[in-house]
């Protein structure tokens, strides 16, 4: 019989283990704001 796993449980299993303190790199664009955004 096929039992549907809870999403949270599935996500838990599928999540790739990341090293402690892993900080995802900032998105390449858009870049930094030098003055202010209007």
């Amino acid at each position: 019989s096929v039992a549907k796993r809870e999403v949270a449980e599935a996500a838990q299993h599928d999540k790739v283990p990341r090293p402690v303190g892993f900080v995802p790199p900032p998105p390449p664009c858009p870049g930094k704001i030098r003055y202010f955004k209007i």
Partner: protein
Amino acid sequence: VPAAPPAPLGCDDPESEAAAAVALSYINSHSHYGYKFALNRIENIRMLPQKLNDYILFLELDLLETTCHILSPTPLENCTVRSFTEHAVEGDCDVKLQKLDGKLSVLASKCHSHADSAEDVLQLCPDCPLLASLNNTEVETTVKAALDDYNSKTADAYLRLLEIGRAKIQYHPAHIVFVEFAVAATNCSAEAAKENVEACQLLPDDQSNFGFCTATKVISPSQDFQVNCQLYGHQVPTPDTSFPSQDTS
């Protein structure tokens, strides 16, 4: 095996900033009206390899207007970006560049500018003056009065109006008109102009002398009128050394 495509550029990568600097210099040197613009943000960059050491770059730039008129000889790095409460103006530019053997050049550019919304400014500063239309009657009247006032008092050349750069009007707590306009010296002295102003023509390019004026006219509750003009002196026009391009305005 074909060379691997270059890694996608980040918008804050040194190579992207170098391309943005070339694009900005091109935009400011090919603009004939208004003010110089400074780089606020690189929105996006795409790189298309053509052949070895030959790339096409597409840049999307977010610029902000500075207080330097486009004819001012002030270097861009010394130009102040207009603050939010001065009713900032933003420029959005799409620029196509070529990077050939490491040398960047602009192939085409297209920009449009727009002022910040009045709501944004008033939310932060309820009494701040807002940008007015350049053909607003009060604006045109104030510019004409300011130029007449300056020409009536100067011992130098008679100045003619080149363009109204910006205008703001405040209504509370006082009614005040603020104008900024570009001027050019003519071949007449202000004294001679009183006799025959029609004879006063702008100086030829090799002798041109441009300037910039600001004026503030308090209409109520009191009356006051301040005019300040500064001539740049003759500037030797810099030959445009950038790559001949089909720039689109």
